[in-house]
């Protein structure tokens, strides 16, 4: 079946099964490989993208559910005001270690800052608990989110 996807402002018509996770359509069909496969069960956050501005785990969202809604991936998040500030803060603090989880971290952090422009440490921990980092970059992630918030 064909689905119309609106990814990063660009329309794609994909011919896939409706229950295939959005992640694999983004990566394998469209070719946007910035979004990563981590656990495959929505537990680690590496595959986070935004659908209608809400962060979702693309490894479990059937593509049929995301069709016709605006989808934003790591490739275009820097085009939003919050995304640009988050990416700059990530670079300024040098958050990334191995980097595998970081596109998901940035997608969550950006949606978070858009809704909560002045977060406390507690606020940050409550939201970013959903994104696991095996390198343990959590202190730098928290610092970068605060830096991005201060850069409004």
């Amino acid at each position: 079946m064909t689905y119309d996807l609106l990814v990063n402002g660009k329309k794609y018509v994909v011919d896939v099964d409706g229950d295939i996770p959005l992640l694999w359509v983004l990566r394998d069909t469209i070719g946007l490989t910035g979004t990563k496969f981590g656990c495959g069960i929505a537990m680690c956050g590496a595959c986070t993208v935004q659908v209608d501005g809400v962060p979702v785990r693309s490894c479990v969202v059937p593509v049929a559910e995301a069709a016709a809604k605006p989808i934003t991936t790591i490739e275009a998040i820097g085009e939003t005001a919050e995304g640009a500030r988050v990416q700059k803060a990530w670079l300024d603090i040098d958050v990334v270690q191995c980097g595998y989880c970081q596109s998901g971290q940035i997608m969550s952090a950006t949606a978070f800052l858009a809704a909560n422009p002045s977060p406390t440490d507690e606020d940050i921990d409550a939201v970013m608990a959903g994104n696991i980092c095996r390198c343990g970059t959590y202190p730098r992630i928290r610092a970068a989110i605060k830096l991005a918030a201060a850069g409004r």
Partner: protein
Amino acid sequence: MIKRIFAIPLVAVLAATGIVAGMGSLQSNAETSDGGALKSVSDFEAIADTSARSKAIFEEASRVMTHPRCINCHPATRSPTQGEDMHPHVPLMNASESSLGPAGLVCSTCHGAENRPVVGSRMKSIPGNSHWSLAPASMAWQGLTVGEICRQVKDTSRNGNRSLADLIRHMGEDHLVGWAWHPGEGRSAPPGSQETFAALIDAWVSTGAECPD
């Protein structure tokens, strides 16, 4: 060049393995199982005393309300529990004021309008319903006795201002309540059915909505 082609997926696999290995508290769930029978209203006809009958009927209905499918989202704190053993939700979730999770990690980040199957995992599916949310703080059930749950359920200051008639309708028709009997692969269902459960609540109300001690 060949080495490099193999190296890229290897890095990805190692990274994914590391992430999964980091989720130490991920626990396997029991296979989906039928929750068994729930006594029907007629099973209580032998109790002559109306008040005693009402209390006994609520006790039976509470087997549903205290089942993990229901009580996991009626926690004592503002964080849900999950699984058959009611361990803390992974990732740690905070209800926030909305009871839908904080912006950036809302329930719908992972939970859809329907159960979502997952492949190749100890966790067979991710539960979902369009009303997926945590019960309000006033409706916390974990840690309460059945009698305390009963008194909370009929207290309009704590039950969302529901009348007894509203409670019968809610228990019998609400599709998030009904989800408990269709929890997706990998989860047990509470005893009985939504229909038998609602009939018990109806009978409890019609016998005076008495609460066990």
